[in-house]
């Protein structure tokens, strides 16, 4: 492979080791690598407790993995269970990204997740050290000194090399640094035999590759790209490029979202079988998403409702849920949108117990004026708009629970309980 025309930059993919558990260790004065901490969400929908994160020591000594259940965690006095505080983790993540901005320009930094960021250091690394590895160590040291956290750094000549270096090598390296270059691709990427270890290859993709007799990264690199394209479409070419460590992404290049939309979803605290209870939650989620599109001054023309059935039903039944979409007249009126969602639900639901509900609004148009309908009294339409505006104002000013529908006090309603959650977990404001 001739790499001469490929971009040769310096990219760092930096990950915070066991981020949530490390944050909790640091605020307790404990060493993140030595403490045995389990961050456990004990919300009603977690069936007694769900492990969100574990410290490296908890993983090593007791094999507790993320998303384990409360029952899988041994009852030992040396395992410290702590509740999650999403706001603390967001605050720490922002602080870390601020430190990164001292090493690369803001447009050269891509926060990939709450605990991972990609830095394009091509233009700036020479300002800080003699080699990319030395600069990586300086950043690691800085974060350790200022925040008490340990970071792992993957270094590559493009983003995908940096990501693979992070996942495959840095996390297992004593210095917590890994590096992949174009010339080291054959010895670093190709020996991988477990394809799901590689970023972007999941169980299903691995299975499909196996059908093509591709079981290792070396076989993927030496496969026929046209055959991959025929099997996977454009992703086939991407997989081929991945095996050769090729990625032409430019972080500074802004990409527009193909079809923007707003959505909210939730896992219910138990299986819901009663028609009225499910409708209350759909109404609550629908109103939340409607408020969000109004806040961003959009109208929606496409609404979607996703319903996931209970685990037991999904196991035995033909379908695990349903997802339906409907094109409607452009609106952001809560009442209209909720009516449409409920009518979709009535059309598709056959009395199965429900565990997940998702609502999304897409096909967005700018809210530049109100289109009145000829089939409804004008006064009524204006009144509905005014009601939404007043509710939005009160909720923005005084919080979402300052004004709720009486139905949110009915059994099954979740809005009031979920108001303080961040990303479905405890925000932690109650402790401040």
């Amino acid at each position, binding site marked *: 492979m001739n790499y001469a025309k490929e971009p040769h930059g310096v990219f760092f993919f930096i990950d915070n080791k066991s981020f949530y558990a490390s944050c909790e260790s640091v605020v*307790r004065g404990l060493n993140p690598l030595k403490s045995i901490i389990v961050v456990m969400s004990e919300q009603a929908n977690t069936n007694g407790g769900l492990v969100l994160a574990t410290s490296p020591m908890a993983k090593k000594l007791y094999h507790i993995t993320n998303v384990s259940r409360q029952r899988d965690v041994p009852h030992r006095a040396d395992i*410290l269970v*702590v509740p999650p505080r999403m706001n603390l983790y967001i605050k720490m993540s922002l602080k870390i990204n601020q430190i990164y901005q001292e090493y690369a320009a803001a447009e050269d930094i891509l926060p990939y997740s709450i605990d991972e960021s990609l830095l394009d250091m091509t233009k700036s690394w020479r300002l800080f050290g003699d080699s990319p590895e030395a600069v990586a160590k300086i950043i690691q040291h800085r974060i350790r000194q200022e*925040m*008490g956290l340990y970071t792992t750094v993957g270094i590559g000549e493009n983003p995908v090399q940096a990501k693979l270096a992070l996942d495959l090598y840095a996390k297992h390296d004593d210095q917590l640094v890994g590096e992949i270059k174009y010339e080291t691709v054959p010895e670093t990427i190709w020996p991988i035999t477990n394809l799901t270890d590689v970023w972007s290859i999941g169980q299903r993709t691995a299975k499909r590759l196996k059908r093509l007799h591709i079981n290792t990264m070396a076989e993927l690199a030496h496969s026929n790209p046209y055959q991959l394209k025929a099997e996977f479409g454009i992703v086939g070419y991407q997989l081929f490029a991945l095996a050769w460590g090729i990625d032409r992404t430019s972080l500074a290049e802004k990409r527009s979202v193909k079809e923007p939309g707003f959505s909210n979803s939730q896992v219910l605290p138990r299986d819901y079988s009663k028609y009225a209870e499910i409708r209350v939650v759909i109404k609550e989620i629908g109103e939340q998403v409607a408020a969000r599109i109004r806040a961003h001054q959009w109208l929606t023309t496409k609404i979607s409702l996703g319903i996931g059935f209970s685990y037991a039903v999904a196991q035995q039944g033909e379908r695990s849920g349903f997802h339906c979409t409907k094109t409607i007249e452009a609106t952001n009126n809560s009442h209209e949108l909720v009516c449409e969602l409920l009518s979709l639900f009535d059309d598709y639901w056959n009395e199965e117990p429900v565990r997940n509900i998702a609502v999304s609004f897409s096909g967005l148009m700018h809210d530049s004026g109100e289109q009145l309908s000829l089939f409804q009294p004008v006064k009524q339409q204006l009144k509905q708009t005014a009601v939404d505006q007043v509710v939005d104002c009160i909720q923005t000013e005084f919080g979402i629970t300052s004004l709720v529908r009486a139905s949110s006090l009915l059994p099954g309603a979740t809005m009031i309980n979920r108001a303080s959650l961040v990303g479905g977990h405890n925000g932690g404001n109650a402790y401040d």
Partner: protein
Amino acid sequence: MIKPEQEVKILQQHIDQTFQRRPNTIYRLWIVRDRFDQSVNFFMLIQPKFRRPHSIPLHMVLTLDLDIIETIIAQIRHQYHLTMIFVGFEGLRWPTSQQLIQSHTVVKP
């Protein structure tokens, strides 16, 4: 400006919520001098017999000023008589009594 009375009030509220005085359960206050965040963090360590200990965050006092911390801790100690574990105060002394705050290293941060 940190007002000790306000901080004590918040701490009292949160301690009252978590200190449920269940039988066969040890309750301790875990107090951390957090040099990274320039704060003193309070946690309730709840350890039921034969079960995993839980560490519940109570409050963060956003200062390292020992005069303020001493005032807050004196009031909390007086009201609850809970065992207090100090972390991160190595070598530091209470301003009034000049006693060592942390008599031994609990953990090495």
